[in-house]
């Protein structure tokens, strides 16, 4: 006798079933927990540290989505970060002090900058893109130093910018919402056809080309999106410290994203959220005790991580969970 056929439930859309995983829910939960945790002390050092953690998480998400997935390393992240900060400063100094407008313009300028840079450099395979992107922040510093008077800057940067929110806790809420949205969007994109091609580029770009897939537009699109997000992140930073200066082009804004992405697992997207809070909170509290030496420790730790634990923390956890789930052999 045939077993009665089970009626299939109406299927959820594919992007949704792929998106909702325990890791994704845990990441959202972590973001919410930190917001609630610091609610009691909206102006504390803890809340401020969380604000910086959130800014670095935004940067790390952008870097992981573009460079982590495609394997084309963008060392010019501080350039797009600073570009966003200076854009926000420029418009705020010009009289446009409406914060959402500043964030939006920074996003747009970052994306345009990313497009203009990646269009010529990504036509070529290999290291040209990475190396030229490394030069970008250096050029930007020289440019500002040479032309700051022509750019109508009050000094070598813009000061007295409007605050992102009244208290650090308010800023944390804005940044946490932004991170949750970005996490969702990047995960959906990662699991889509677009993300599949990006991962294919990392694994074997020649194989993709031989299938008749033009990889160039996908690469440019990924880096345009990531640069826009970096610009947005730069604007949030400038509005948090109310100053857009040359320090936004510093290499720490690529060092920490790289550290976070590798600790979270390259190309995993979700891992950046967990690793971001771990790295930046640890840094903020160690910095109180050890001051300048902390940066040396973290750079050294990053080197050791790339050399000895390139898979990060999430990958071992994943394989452990998979191991526990597999039924025992008879």
């Amino acid at each position, binding site marked *: 006798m045939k077993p009665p056929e089970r009626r299939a439930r109406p299927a959820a859309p594919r992007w949704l079933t792929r998106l909702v995983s325990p890791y994704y829910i845990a990441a959202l939960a972590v973001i919410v927990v930190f917001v609630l945790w610091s609610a009691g002390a909206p102006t504390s050092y803890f809340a401020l540290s969380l604000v910086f953690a959130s800014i670095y998480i935004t940067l790390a998400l952008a870097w992981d989505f573009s460079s982590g997935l495609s*394997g084309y*390393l963008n*060392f010019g992240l501080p350039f797009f970060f600073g570009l966003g900060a200076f854009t926000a400063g420029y418009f705020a100094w010009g009289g446009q002090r409406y914060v959402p407008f500043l964030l939006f313009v920074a996003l747009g300028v970052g994306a345009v900058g990313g497009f203009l840079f990646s269009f*010529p*450099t990504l*036509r*070529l395979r290999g*290291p*040209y893109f*990475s*190396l*030229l992107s*490394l*030069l970008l922040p*250096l*050029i930007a510093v*020289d*440019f500002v*130093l*040479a*032309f700051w008077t022509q750019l109508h800057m009050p000094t070598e940067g813009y000061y007295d910018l409007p605050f992102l929110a009244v208290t650090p806790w308010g800023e944390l809420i804005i940044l946490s919402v932004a991170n949750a949205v970005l996490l969702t969007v990047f995960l959906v994109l990662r699991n889509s056809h677009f993300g599949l091609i990006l991962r294919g580029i990392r694994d074997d770009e020649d194989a993709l080309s031989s299938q008749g897939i033009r990889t160039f537009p996908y690469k440019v699109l990924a880096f345009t999106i990531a640069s826009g997000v970096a610009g947005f992140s730069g604007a949030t930073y400038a509005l948090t410290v109310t100053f857009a200066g040359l320090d936004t082009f510093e*290499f720490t804004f690529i*060092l920490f994203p*790289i550290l976070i992405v*590798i600790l979270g697992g390259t190309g995993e997207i979700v891992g950046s959220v967990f690793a971001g809070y771990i790295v930046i909170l640890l840094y903020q509290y160690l910095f109180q005790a050890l001051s*300048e*030496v902390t*940066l*040396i420790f973290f*750079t*050294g730790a*990053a*080197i050791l991580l*790339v*050399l*000895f634990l*390139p898979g990060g923390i999430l990958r071992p956890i994943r394989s452990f969970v998979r191991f526990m789930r597999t039924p025992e052999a008879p």
Partner: protein
Amino acid sequence: MAGILAPVVVYGTLFGLTYVLVALGFTLLFGISRVLNLAYGALYMVTAYLIYYLAVELGVNLLVAVVVAIAVAIVVGLAVFLLCVRFAPDPMRFLIVSLLVALLLQYLFEYYFYGETGLIIPGLLPSHEFLFYGVSVSPVYVVTAGVALALLVLLWGWVEWTDYGRTIRATAEDPETAALFGIRVRSVYLVVVAVSSALIALAAALIVPAQEVDPNMWIEPFVIAFVVAVIGGLGKFKWTLPAAFLLSFSQYFVQLEYPTSSSLSDIVAFAVAIGFIIVLPQGIGGIHREAA
């Protein structure tokens, strides 16, 4: 006419040859091992700081300090290379590790010297300038240019005309086949890394007395080495000289046009590199091959 042209020719040539010295090691290393070492500029910084520390703070004889600094730079270069080859063999991770090493050294020196900039080290050469066709020239650059030219010729001879040079070229062409013919590929790489590190360290020992020592100084030589490599065609060792001249003359012309602006030379270098990547991605060496 000669009055305007003389400084252009003199400075363009001297700086061009200095650029050759800075870029030689980078191009040699990339041409043979296909490894892009972002810590290359950091070796320049290590040498400069060590000479400063030994000669100025400890009072060691200057020549001894220079020799020790160059030796340490070679050891650091080899250590980074060995660590990467052993634990991070893919090029992507090598790029990240070498960048992180450069940053680590920068932060270390910043911390140790309290972020002090503008440290001056005494030169091996007299620093008083002399007149040459109405242009005042520093002996530092003249000697550097001479050393650069000599080293270029020597290295070319070494790679093109000696037995070991043939081994090196075979390894560059195809490491696996070279290994089949009994070449110890690993040792060839190590020799090339050591030579490349020695070259940039020597460049530092010669040039830095005319500049100042500061924690960001690894960037400048890296920019020059990379842009010269792009203009000549990445890894095309023979084209270093014309590429360096092209860069130095274009920088000097821009400086003539905008003498007041402080630091345009990096922007010019970047623009030239982007221009070459759009129009001639294979560099000057690429035209030659197409014509042949």
